[in-house]
């Protein structure tokens, strides 16, 4: 047990240590904490009013526990998704495991150590959403101390089962991925397959819910005790058990369901460790070993072809991103997940005819309003742009190569900005496809939206690269460190959303700007202005950085 704790502590320290962080990054963390306070206040106010009005509506038919049911169902999906990303990165893509494997540790001990970082993300995620909702539900239902105690106990165990389910699935995938010839490619494939799996579950659930429930059926269910709850939690028993244990924590039923949850969690833990003991090492042994290609002289000769340095640099960046599992998952897969998820949901919703009406719905708005809505939407999808805030850090110790080679610093840095922009372009193409083929947006609106999104994407690529160039993380031993425990991604996103949030808010309320063209012109002008400003800052940063390093 001591060794397991030691492992967990060491692994956490390596990922979240403040050592080596520049003072500007530390300042950034403080800044984010300060910024979180007003956002937190607004969030709490929003949750309070949401829960309050839902409670009022649902308690009329004595179905108020649906709020808890919905909370636990959505949390299960969210936790499955967060687990997927963090288990893959911590258990399989992080190659420091090879360093630990030479020590006399059991696979389960290493797994427990490796699980520390994913669990931190899981509790953080559920803390942000579950705590306020459970709290306000308690306040609105005028619950006693026992409710809060039960809520706390549920909060502790709830993330464990989704985590275990995802971990066991991944262990099976990776066990077989690891015997494949091209390990990097198979690791990527296994990761993507699991993304598809998560989306698949969602579809199955949706189809299951849409099996022609008539209004009469629903009414009957609402009248039946817990009928509606049973319907929505049909496929996720833990959501049902958790809801039941909190609905009436004083009763024998309530405490029995709480006990059931603890029993299930215990079983999940046993399954997790025993599966891990059997499969984990098989999934990671030879993780860094690669395959040899068959030598083909013609291919070698064909590969030798001169091209402009700028193009060569961009191709190099793209190859490295697409071939490194961590970079691929963080920069490409995660940013595509949003648009792909949206498309899948929309396709299945489309059967009810809801989607085709988006175009018509937007047409009903004034032109200005529709473009503002679409613009904020694409900024949310494109804003995070991890390829931009990892631009410089991705090079790691190879960064010095850029310094001793006869390449202009601006050429090197701009090749990275273009790379980040190109990766965002993939998401944008998918969104545009939704706009054209599924939502059937009017042509003018579509063209303006795409042009503005392309500009916004260039802006986010610049902002991320400036931040990363300002305080790059080059001394990483594992690619994960670039993305974890670094605050610059969040700062960049907040800055982008803050800048454009204010702009859109002003435009929305400004009566002098009317019509789609005027709004587009003002937005485009503002974008051009901030892009110009970013170019100026980037040049200054390049000059300063290449002077001092």
């Amino acid at each position, binding site marked *: 047990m001591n060794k397991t704790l030691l492992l967990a502590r060491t692994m956490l320290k390596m990922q979240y240590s403040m050592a080596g962080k520049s003072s500007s990054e530390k300042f950034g963390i403080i800044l984010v904490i300060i910024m979180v306070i007003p956002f937190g206040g607004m969030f709490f106010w929003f949750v309070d009013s949401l829960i309050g009005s839902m409670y009022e509506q649902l308690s009329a038919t004595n179905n108020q526990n649906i709020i808890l049911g919905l909370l636990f169902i959505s949390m299960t999906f969210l936790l499955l998704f967060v687990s997927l990303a963090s288990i893959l990165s911590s258990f399989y893509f992080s190659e420091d495991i090879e360093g630990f494997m030479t020590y006399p540790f059991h696979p389960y001990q290493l797994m427990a150590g490796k699980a520390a970082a994913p669990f931190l993300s899981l509790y953080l995620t559920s803390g942000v959403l579950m705590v306020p909702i459970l709290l306000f539900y308690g306040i609105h239902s005028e619950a006693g101390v026992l409710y809060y105690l039960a809520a706390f106990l549920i909060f502790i165990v709830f993330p464990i089962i989704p985590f275990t389910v995802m971990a066991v699935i991944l262990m099976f995938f990776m066990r077989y991925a690891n015997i494949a010839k091209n390990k*990097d490619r198979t690791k990527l494939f296994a990761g993507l397959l699991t993304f598809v799996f998560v989306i698949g579950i969602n579809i199955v659930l949706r189809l299951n819910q849409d099996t022609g429930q008539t209004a009469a059926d629903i009414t009957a269910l609402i009248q039946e005790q817990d009928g509606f709850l049973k319907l929505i939690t049909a496929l996720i028993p833990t959501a049902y058990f958790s809801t039941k244990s909190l609905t009436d924590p004083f009763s024998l039923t309530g405490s029995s369901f709480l006990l059931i949850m603890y029993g299930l969690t215990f079983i999940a833990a046993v399954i997790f460790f025993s599966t891990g003991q059997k499969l984990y090492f098989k999934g990671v042994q030879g993780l*860094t*070993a*690669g*395959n*040899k*290609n*068959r*030598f*083909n002289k013609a*291919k*070698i*000769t064909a*590969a*030798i*072809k*001169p*091209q*402009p*340095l700028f193009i*060569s640099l961009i191709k*190099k960046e793209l*190859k*490295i991103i697409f*071939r*490194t599992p961590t970079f691929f998952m963080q920069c490409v897969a995660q940013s595509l997940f949003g648009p792909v998820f949206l498309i899948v949901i929309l396709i299945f919703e489309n059967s009810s005819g809801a989607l085709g009406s988006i175009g018509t719905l937007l047409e009903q708005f004034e032109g200005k309003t529709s473009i503002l809505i679409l613009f904020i939407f694409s900024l949310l999808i494109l804003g995070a742009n991890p390829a931009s805030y990892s631009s410089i850090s991705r090079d790691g*110790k*190879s960064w*010095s*190569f850029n*310094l*001793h*080679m*006869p*390449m*202009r610093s601006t050429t090197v840095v701009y090749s990275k900005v273009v790379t980040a922009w190109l990766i965002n372009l993939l998401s944008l193409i998918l969104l545009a496809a939704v706009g054209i083929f599924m939502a059937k947006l009017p042509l003018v609106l579509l063209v303006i939206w795409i042009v503005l999104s392309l500009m916004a994407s260039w802006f986010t690529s610049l902002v991320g690269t400036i931040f990363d160039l300002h305080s790059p993380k080059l001394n990483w031993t594992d690619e994960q460190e670039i993305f974890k425990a670094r605050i610059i991604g969040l700062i960049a996103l907040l800055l982008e959303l803050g800048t454009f949030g204010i702009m859109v808010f002003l435009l929305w309320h400004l009566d002098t700007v009317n019509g789609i063209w005027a709004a587009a012109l003002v937005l485009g002008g503002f974008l051009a202005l901030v892009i110009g400003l970013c170019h100026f800052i980037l040049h200054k940063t390049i000059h300063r950085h290449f*002077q*001092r*390093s």
Partner: protein
Amino acid sequence: MITINNVTKKFPGNTAVSNLDLTIPDGKIFGFLGPNGAGKSTTIKMITGILPIDEGEITINGFNIASHPMEAKKIFGYVPDRPDVFLRLKGIEYLNFIGDVYDIPKDIRQEKIEYLTKSFGIYGSLSDHIQTYSHGMRQKIVISGVLLHDPDVWILDEPLSGLDPKSSYTLKEMMREHADKGNTVFFSTHVLEVVEQLCDEVAIINYGKLEFRGNMKELKEQFEAEQTLEKLFLELTSHE
């Protein structure tokens, strides 16, 4: 020729290189020696433009690395102490990329890639990712990349570490040939046998200061004549 003129480099709480004056002449193989942490790599990083110079100046064939970096960088080829660059690229992609950096015409590129990689025995592995290479193979692909554009000045940081005897011999032959043509070869090493066998001149640095500069004969004359290089080295670098 490399001229290091009164160069100082400070890190917080530590002066890594202090008032270093050194000229590395053409036509000679110049060995740069010193114990771990003596300031060898810091000096090399300043010569190659990786680290900025705090005081003094460095010129390579007359071009100041700080004020004319592009001109200076086109003249030299640098083999770093760690050959782990761009591991996810294939060997051939890496060399082609270097070809693009130095604008090497296609026919020369093809000819030189084939010649160099065959000399080092890695031609058959060019379509593999560098990540799958052993340490020695990575060293060889980096050296091949450096020699691809035929630089006048070679700067090599521990170039022989990890190389098998045959490749080590090939590289030493290449270094000798390059210096004999009137070019500059500057390399750091810990292997004293190599220094004895290969170097025309040596400089020994310790605590960031130059302890000795001269040829092997002068080195032995300055100390007792029949000592081995190992004893000389230990004697020179042992004092505080």
